[in-house]
């Protein structure tokens, strides 16, 4: 087994007022990659993040992270969140209101560490001027930068981002996407990003996994093989039954191989596509599928 790869193989019944299905996933996280997880609301993306973070105990299965077994229901192994090397950024930031920016970061600092990393993070995230400010005094974008910096203070093996930019306006989102990519590369992180925004995924992710009703319906859309680029140049509308409805963007004709699939379609047109393999996908005939 390659110890640099993290793997999650688990199942969990998700049952509430909105949904009732089994989450069943088998996914790998490669070292230093930024993996995006996307799909409709309620498809189980956040549950996967919570399983990785140790915040969801009910999942059956096994989780290896870079050579360490964090969870194995068969052996009764479950590392608490405190024992996992993770950094989590929640959708609502979850900054501690009673602590200043600096205190939020210091709270996360292990006793054996000195302040150097905090000073560095404050500088990298452009927070030096704000370190005495309290969360209430910060804008959404500033709070998000603090949350990102705080998540890195423990030098985590995994950085888990749960729709971190969803509450921000487009301009701020683009600004912060730069910070996420910068941190990911600077600290050689393995990052899982949950996002609904195709442009955000296109800009940040090395690989994309699409989920629907607890299952992975497509994956391996790597930057190298480029269909992700093509796919994400389109506007993502709705995954359904293993297909994804997209509205084609303007630049699909620049893509060499995959573009042929769209030869008969016009930019702006809506089509259903199905991933066949990492390199191939096909346009589904909607009429036939019905």
């Amino acid at each position, binding site marked *: 087994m390659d110890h640099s790869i993290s793997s999650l193989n688990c199942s969990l019944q998700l049952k509430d007022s909105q949904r009732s299905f089994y989450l069943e996933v088998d996914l790998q996280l490669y070292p230093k990659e930024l993996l995006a997880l996307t799909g409709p609301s309620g498809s189980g993306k956040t549950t996967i993040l919570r399983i990785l*973070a*140790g*915040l969801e105990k009910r999942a059956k299965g096994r989780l290896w992270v870079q050579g360490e077994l964090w969870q194995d229901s068969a052996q009764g192994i479950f590392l*608490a*969140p*405190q024992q*996992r090397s*993770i*950094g*989590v950024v*929640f*959708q*609502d930031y*979850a*900054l*501690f*209101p*009673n602590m200043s920016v600096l205190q939020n970061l210091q*709270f*996360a600092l*292990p006793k054996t560490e000195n302040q150097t990393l905090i000073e560095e993070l404050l500088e990298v995230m452009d927070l030096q001027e704000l370190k005495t400010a*309290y969360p*209430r*005094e910060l804008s959404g974008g500033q709070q998000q930068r603090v949350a990102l910096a*705080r*998540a890195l*203070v*423990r030098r985590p093996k995994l950085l888990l981002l749960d729709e971190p930019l969803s509450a921000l306006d487009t301009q701020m989102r683009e600004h912060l996407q730069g910070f996420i990519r910068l941190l990911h590369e600077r600290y050689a992180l393995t990052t899982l990003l949950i996002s609904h925004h195709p442009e955000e995924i296109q800009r940040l992710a090395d690989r994309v996994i699409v989920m629907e009703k607890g299952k992975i319906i497509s994956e391996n859309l790597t930057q190298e093989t480029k269909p992700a680029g093509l796919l994400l140049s389109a506007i993502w509308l709705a995954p359904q039954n293993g297909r994804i409805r997209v509205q084609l963007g303007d630049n699909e004709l620049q893509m060499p191989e995959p573009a042929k699939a769209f030869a008969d379609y016009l930019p702006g047109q809506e089509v259903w596509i199905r991933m066949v393999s990492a390199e191939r996908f096909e346009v589904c005939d909607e009429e036939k599928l019905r």
Partner: protein
Amino acid sequence: MDFFNTLLLTLRLAGVTTVILLVLGIPIAYRLAYTRSFLKPVFEAMVSLPLVLPPTVIGFYLLIAFSPNSALGEWLQNNLDIRLVFTFEGLVLGSVIYSFPFMVQPLQSGFEHLPPHLAEASYTLGKSTWVTLWRVLLPNIRPALLSGIVLSFAHTVGEFGVVLMIGGNIPSVTRVASIAIYDEVEALNFAAANQYALTMVVLTFVFLVLFFRFNRRSQQWITR
């Protein structure tokens, strides 16, 4: 002298009860706020029971349970040398039970109104449940904490039925202010009753003013 002893006893009872309620109430409110158990409504009903039961009912059952004639009361007296009926300790026990919801409910509400991921964020930063409670959750529910303290204290100061049933009316031992007022009125000694009553009004008023002052400051501190 009897007047001051009675007042001191009342304040001592309220103070001891409030401290015990804080120690018991924080973990119970925390559990109630975060539990997903289907038994949660049952636990909540148990905590709230003293709100709706007549104080004399609680006092009556405590009297029966801890009387030296009962199995429990006899066992406590013979084995642990503890006698709860007609003693200060008995008053404390009755007051703790009677004022329980006044501490637990504000705290539970405080925990439930915190941003949902605050505790989880602390856990993912490597902090234990205890550190999370002490450094993250409690500082952010300070107004609820103050409410619990003030309500429990004031409610204990004002209680009558429970303390009369379990404590009786023994000067300097179980005779608290509310019982003294009742006693003086029964003896048609209105001047003495008024002395107690007026002192209670003034003390309670000052206490509440201090509470609102601290509460405002702590809210400013949290939201600044």
